[in-house]
Structure formats: C-alpha cells, structure tokens
C-alpha cells in the first residue's frame, strides 16, 4: 500500500486534501480539506493507536501484545497523546 504523505516534501508544512475521487462512478470532489489528526500521525503511531483501541484501551493487554513492559507502553501512549495534542493545536 502506498504511504499517504502528510508533510510537504518541499517546505515541510502539513499537506491538505485538494481532491477526492470516487473510483466507482468517476466523480471528483474538489476543495480544501484538512487531513484528520489521526491521519497525520506517522504509521507506527497510527498502528499503536489502532491496536490500543482494539485492546479496549488496556495498557496491560498492549504490554502483552507488544511484548514490552507496562511502563514502556505507558510512555509510548504518553508520547502519542503529546503528539495528538500538538497536531490538534496546529489544526486550530
């Protein structure tokens, strides 16, 4: 699967969506849409967020899933929360 670029390769500003395309009926919708905060996370953080939701938000379960200690997973979650807050602030 192709990786969704979220940062401009030229000036490193956050990218926005300009067009959406329906492969079924060939319709194109144009406009300027901000990428959702979760889509702007790096792939590892997105995978962590997904796994965390699937684990019903249980750090203990995440710890077993990732084979990492509870405090390590707790720190990963804290880093993710900090990153989300930063992106949310940028989106305002």
């Amino acid at each position, binding site marked *: 699967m192709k990786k969704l670029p979220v940062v401009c390769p030229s000036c490193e500003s956050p990218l926005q969506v300009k067009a959406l395309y329906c492969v079924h009926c060939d319709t194109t919708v144009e406009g300027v849409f901000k990428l959702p905060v979760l889509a702007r996370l790096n792939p590892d953080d997105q995978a962590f967020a997904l796994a965390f939701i699937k684990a019903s938000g249980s750090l203990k379960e995440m710890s077993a899933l990732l084979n990492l200690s*509870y405090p390590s997973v707790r720190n990963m979650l804290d880093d993710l929360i900090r990153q989300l807050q930063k992106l949310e602030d940028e989106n305002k």
Partner: protein
Amino acid sequence: MSYLFQPHRFVDGWKAFGIGLGFQVLATLFAFLLSGRFDGILDFHFFDESSLRQAVTDQLINIAVLWLVFGGSIAIISRGRNRWSDVLGLLLLARAPVMLLPLLNLGDYFRQLSPRLLTEENALSNLPTPSESFLLLLFSLVALAILAWWLVLLFRVYRLFIHKTSVSYTLLFIVLVVFAEYISKSLLLLLQL
C-alpha cells in the same frame, strides 16, 4: 543483549520484583560466603569477618534507601503516575549486576592480598609483584565495569519512570545517587554494622 542492558523494556511489576529479589538474595549469599559487604549503595568491600545477619541487614538498608530516595523522587516527578510494584521491581532488577562483585573474591585471593599491600611495616618488601599488579588492575577494571553497569540500569529505570530527557533531570539523578550513598553509608555507620 537487550535483556542485559534494557531489562526494564521487557519486564515489569511482580515479575521484575521476583527476579530482582532473587538476584538480591544471591548477592547477599555471595557477599556472606565470600567475606564481602555491600556497605553503601555504591560500596563493596572485603572484610575478615562476615555474618549472614550483617549481609542481610546491609542489603535491606541499601534496598530501603534506594526505594525511598528513587521511588520517592520518581513518585514526585511523575506525580504518582507509575505503579509502585513496577518501580520497586525494576529498581531491584537494576541492582542485579552488583551480585557479581563478591564473586571477584573467589578463592579469597583479594581479601588476603589487600592487608599485606596496605601494611606500613616493611612497605618496600610488600610491593606487589607484576602478576599481583596485573590482577589488581584487572580486578579494578571489572569492578568498575560492574558498578557502571548497575548505574546505567538505574539511570534507565529512573528515566523510564520520570519520562523526561532534559539535562536537569540527569543532574538530579547524580545528586540522588550521591544522596542515597550518603544516607545508606550513614545508616550503616549509625547502626555500627
């Protein structure tokens, strides 16, 4: 290698506590059997007399001081965010390398060598032979490496729990180590053990 230098990444809670406690029990037994004493959180010396009661008391004081100084600081800095079983378990586990220090006296070689070299009578005739000098140098290097290993593990555990990377917290770590050493040493002297 990761398990040797980053055990805190893989082990936590009561499992870390059990493994850490096991290593500390071994360290205490080795110290008793090989005439050593952990007389301070950073100290290890060989003595002519040793008792199991003394070895156990040394370890209990060191662990209690470590727990109070580092556990307390971690709780304050992280605002009680961590589970106490993780903190205690990983602090105990970080201290595992010190169990190797008493083993340096296998065969009682170094305990017997030190008093002869340190005696002031006939100092010139008591100079170490080249082979003794080499063994002393090797002993010092290995002991320093073990001490460094234990401090690296302690620092990593401290950083894991406070989850901050600024230089001020590294300086605080150094202050805490010196403070814990001072307290543990003072307590052992106060109890005249």
